[in-house]
């Protein structure tokens, strides 16, 4: 441990104003990337499923027409 106390750890020897924002921005990017990935995936799947449902409905309609 490079610091004597938790308060000293937070203070970063007077450089808290620089160290924490730099780490914060980096973590923000990493988390942002992960969240964006999940969001993108979920939206894509929703779209794909909707399309699959529509196709199934259309196929069903076509079958009914043939049988009638």
């Amino acid at each position: 441990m490079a610091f004597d106390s938790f308060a000293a750890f937070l203070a970063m020897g007077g450089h808290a104003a620089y160290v924490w924002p730099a780490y914060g921005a980096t973590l923000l990017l990493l988390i942002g990337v992960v969240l964006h990935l999940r969001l993108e995936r979920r939206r894509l799947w929703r779209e794909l499923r909707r399309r699959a449902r529509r196709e199934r409905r259309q196929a069903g309609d076509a079958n009914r027409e043939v049988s009638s």
Partner: protein
Amino acid sequence: MWAFFHKLASPKGFYAFSARLSPWFWAAAAVLIGAGVVWGLAFAPADYQQGNSFRIIYVHVPAAFLAQSIFVAMALAGLVFMVWKIKLADMAATAMAPLGAGMTFVALLSGAVWGVPTWGTWWQWDARLTSMLILFFLYIGVIALRGAFDGRDSGSRAASVLTMVGVINIPIIKYSVEWWYTLHQPATFSITSRPAMPVEMWLPLLIMVLGFYSFFIAVTLTRTRSVILHRESAKRWVRELAGEDG
């Protein structure tokens, strides 16, 4: 052996393969970055010159590494796409680009923040920061060019050419900027070039770099899967996949 690669290079094969691979990289990224952050912030000794502001190195350097590596990876993918017409390579390049731009931005931001305690200013025309800034513009250009084409295929090809031109230029830009910098301010010291670091300083750095690379691979694998689904959404296997699921 050939058949294995051939299967991998097909979007469908890659989709199945990457599903098994990506969790390992996500786990590695989480463990390594978590350990690196704690070690770098709390346990690594402070620098005798810069004090605790030195700890910014543990995010600045990995981000800068990744910023450059991702551009090179994109250029390699572009080459594979143009020469062997493997569409998967282009999908991967598409997936990587925003992360590369983000990493470049973080490297710039952490460099600027680091500059305050070191140089007493938010922006110094330091050689590394300047070439990082130019790299950022290159990323923006590639992303903008890809988006500017109506046809996706031509956008992909254009972006591939530009990435390859850019990657040939990156070393030239780097050396010329360094040359320019030493010419104009010979005495200032650079934030990241330093004499040999002790083990307890560079080991967390190594861990962070490895963690960032794992993160990059994990993101690329996962995002490429999304791009595959998006581009192949008319193909039967994707439609079957979507049908089973819903």
